[in-house]
């Protein structure tokens, strides 16, 4: 399988997950990496969400372990990139890494009980979760509602500008010999002896030893085109952007409902407030979760619901102008866990996808895990929960081009 240049790898998708995987493999040595994308790099889901790098929203389990690994790797990776060739320090500055910490606020008694229980479990799993009394909360977030029943501070939560983060990871991969091909859509597979040996693309065939499906919410479609369907679906999220404000929000502040919405699969609209400021002064107000396929129509009632939830946390923002709304599609698997590993049905095909609303944060840990699996070295965390041949991934009928 090895050529004189090493193992040839083609990463399918240049979002943040593909970028992180390309970088890990390029740095590992022994791989000749190409990243392909039908559009431009990092401009799909990665540029249509937010950049929270969170441990606070995850209960004990495999996703939290992946989040903790990622949280440790982020500052290391950014420091390493900044030391790279000319221009990379600027690329890292653009990432706007900010370990500002998260604050979760409950506004009902039931919410407070749930939050305290959740935090106790998290602490047992090694997450720092510090209760804030009313005075401490007011000091940390002077504009947050006084009508709260509980508040917790998660000092490990951080934030990046996601498109810049992907560009920095990809730029580092390119600096380490990776090739990027944009405007190149993967159409289908070429197999020999049951093994994936090349992908057909709009720019001709691309042969390689390994292919990594990192096509985000389109991973299900792409995998179906390659003949090995996985059940990754889109879940729409919308975000509001305010006009630039003087400093008003200092942490990532979200309501305790968030914890419930992430793990739920309901079809209909769910919203929970996530409020954070950006370096430009705008405040981002998220977000919603809807399963509507790839329907990107603006829905005023969804924006209204987000606005109402945000005002419950920050009533003082009522007079602030909202100047933009945008949204994207979270790549999600019915059991809400990413898919990372080799596809047992089609040798040569690997998957790194299904990160739902956490792919920015989890990208870097995912890439490390994938590298170890490709190498055959013992990963730092148990990869079994993310394996491809689990019922949630292979269970459903293959999504056709039309149905997702």
């Amino acid at each position: 399988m090895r050529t004189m240049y090493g193992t040839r790898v083609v990463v399918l998708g240049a979002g943040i997950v593909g970028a992180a995987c390309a970088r890990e493999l390029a740095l590992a040595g022994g791989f000749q990496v190409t990243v392909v994308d039908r559009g431009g790099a990092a401009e799909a889901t990665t540029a249509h969400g937010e950049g929270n790098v969170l441990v606070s929203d995850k209960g004990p389990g495999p996703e939290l372990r992946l989040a903790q690994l990622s949280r440790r790797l982020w500052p290391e990776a950014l420091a390493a990139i900044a030391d790279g060739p000319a221009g990379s320090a600027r690329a890292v500055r653009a990432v706007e890494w900010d370990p500002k910490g998260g604050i979760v606020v409950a506004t009902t008694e039931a919410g407070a009980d749930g939050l305290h229980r959740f935090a106790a479990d998290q602490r047992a799993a090694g997450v720092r979760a510090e209760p804030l009394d009313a005075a401490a909360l007011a000091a940390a977030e002077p504009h947050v509602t006084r009508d709260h029943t509980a508040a917790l501070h998660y000092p490990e939560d951080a934030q990046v500008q996601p498109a810049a983060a992907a560009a920095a990871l990809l730029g580092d991969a390119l600096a380490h010999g990776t090739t990027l091909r944009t405007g190149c859509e993967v159409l289908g597979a070429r197999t020999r002896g049951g093994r994936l040996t090349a992908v057909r693309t709009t720019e001709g065939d691309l042969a390689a030893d390994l292919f990594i499906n990192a096509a985000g919410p389109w991973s299900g479609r792409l995998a179906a085109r390659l003949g090995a369907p996985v059940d990754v679906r889109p879940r729409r999220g919308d975000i509001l952007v305010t006009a630039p404000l003087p400093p008003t929000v200092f942490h990532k502040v979200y309501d305790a409902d968030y914890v419930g919405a992430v793990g739920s699969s309901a079809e209909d609209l769910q919203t929970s407030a996530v409020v954070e400021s950006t370096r430009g002064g705008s405040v981002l107000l998220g977000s919603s979760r809807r399963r509507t396929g790839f329907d990107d129509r603006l829905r005023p009632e969804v924006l209204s619901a987000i606005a109402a939830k945000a005002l419950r946390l920050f009533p003082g923002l009522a007079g602030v102008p909202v100047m933009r709304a945008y949204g994207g599609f979270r790549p999600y698997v019915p059991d809400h866990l990413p898919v990372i590993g080799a596809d047992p049905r089609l040798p040569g095909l690997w998957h790194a996808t299904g990160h739902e609303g956490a792919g920015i944060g989890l990208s870097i840990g995912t890439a490390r895990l994938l590298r170890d699996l490709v190498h055959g070295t013992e990963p730092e965390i148990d990869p079994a929960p993310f394996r491809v041949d689990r019922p949630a991934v292979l269970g459903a009928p293959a999504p056709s081009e039309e149905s997702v």
Partner: protein
Amino acid sequence: MSPRLIRAAADATGRRPDRPLHLTVDGEPVTGIAGQSIAGVLLAAGRTSWRTARSGAPRGVFCGIGVCFDCVLTVNGAPDVRACRRRAVDGDVVITQSRADGSTDGAAGGGRMTLRQVVVVGAGPAGLAAAASTLAAGAAVTLLDAAERPGGQYHRMLPEEYGAARPGRLHHGWAAFERLRHRVLGHPRCTWLAETAVWALERPEPGCPGPPLVHTLTGPADGTDRPRRTLAPDALVLAPGAHDRVLPFPGWELPGVYAAGAAQALAKGERLAIGDDVLLAGSGPFLLPVAAALLEAGAGVRAVLEANPPATVARGWARRPWELAEQPGKAAELAEYTALLARHRVPYRMGRTVIEARGKGRVEEAVTARLRPDWSVVPGSEVTVAVDALCVSHAFSPQLELPMAAGCALLRSPTGEFVAVDGDQLTSCPGVYAAGEITGIAGAPAARTEGALAGWLAGGGDPAAPALRRVRRNRDRGRAFAARLAAAHPVGSAWPGWLRPETVICRCEETDYGALCRTATEEAGAAPRVTKLATRAGLGPCQARICGPTVAELTARLGGSPPGRPADGLPVAAPHRRPLAQPIRLGELASTPDHPDPSEPDTKESTA
């Protein structure tokens, strides 16, 4: 000299004696007169700037019509109010804003309706004509405009408070406009919604025919707690017009540098002259009415500079000169302006433009230079001129956010993108018509004809009606005229030669040309959306209305935008995409719209 108000006694419009009103601005009393916008009050009081950008640089009025968001301030506690749009009210407490230190302190819906319901957005020449012919076709029309009074940019009306006895003195075709306005607004099947902005269009479910739902806010510009409405028309006519496209040059962000339309709007709409030593530069016949309005207002005009050399202009017009002659109103109007310039000894120079503005805290001098046909500067031809105001307009930029939100296909032309329409003014979206400057720049008469056609067909009028033949013919002439205009006044491709690395490209976020160049040439970050997030160019309060087309052009030239297929569901990065067509306050967004009961006839808001 500073901008100043024309004295009522000397005002040709026969304005009534001023009724003073008092504001406090940052705690200081400032006196204005009833009818002025807050920007008008401040300019007349001698302030050319009142906001500071992130870098601390001073800012004031630039576009004058609510597009650039440069003039925002806090009014009665509500931040980010566009001063050029907001009428001053006695007792207003105004606080200026700064981004530097981070301190602001500062319908008729539905299926049960038997009568066909048409919503017309924009009451300029195109929209007003559309409403009239919708009524003629027998349908009901809801005409709405963000402004308080109809007329659009062309027939910008004086505020009622000015009590002008002879408002028509400032306008061409005023009597006809007045007749039309009264006929439309007074019609029993017309609902006129003044001060009503469309903030969103909601497309129907895929597969469902019909135009989008229209979401509106009614109240003073950038007010608070404005009621929301949702209109569900059978057909929609979009006529939101255009604004000046100003290309960046060093110093264009200085107070005292205005988009030409701002000078026009302030003179026509507020009787304010922006300066005494004014230089006009750019391209196109629109510079002439601006010069005329400034002269009428008593301002000194140093010169009018047309960037294109005589050969380009002549070639553009001369190939089929009868097409110009067949826009009768326009030809006479242009002749009149030319005579006026001659009378005032204002030189009209071709092949020359402003390539730099200089000054401390405001414009004090302009550097002009001779241009080659591609707008590259002839070395050594630079001349420095002392000015107290500079007006610039290189082209027009259609307001495309509503058509894009509706899902209308655009047409790329050498002068930019416009809404694609068929011979019936129908866009690519069922039930959505487009008229006026959003389909091409050809002036008010052409906008009117397009509106008349669109309104008739939107209202269910017979497409084969005999009277329509003439309308269609005029419309076709209007289109031909637009093509001539574009050929005679192109934007030369070498204009980026004026730029320096430190020249501001995005006025809102103060992104400079150097930053744009650096980012667009980085392979991993070259996608337009990624560049935008990294440089912030286009992310500011105006949402790329001002910088968008320029940034798109520059990044494409820098080798930025890679080819490729857009991802399903995700819109392509486009300079005119603004899903929120107007800012809406969070509290307003959280409130529920009132859905008027469709079984009840709409109450008439006003018949002003």
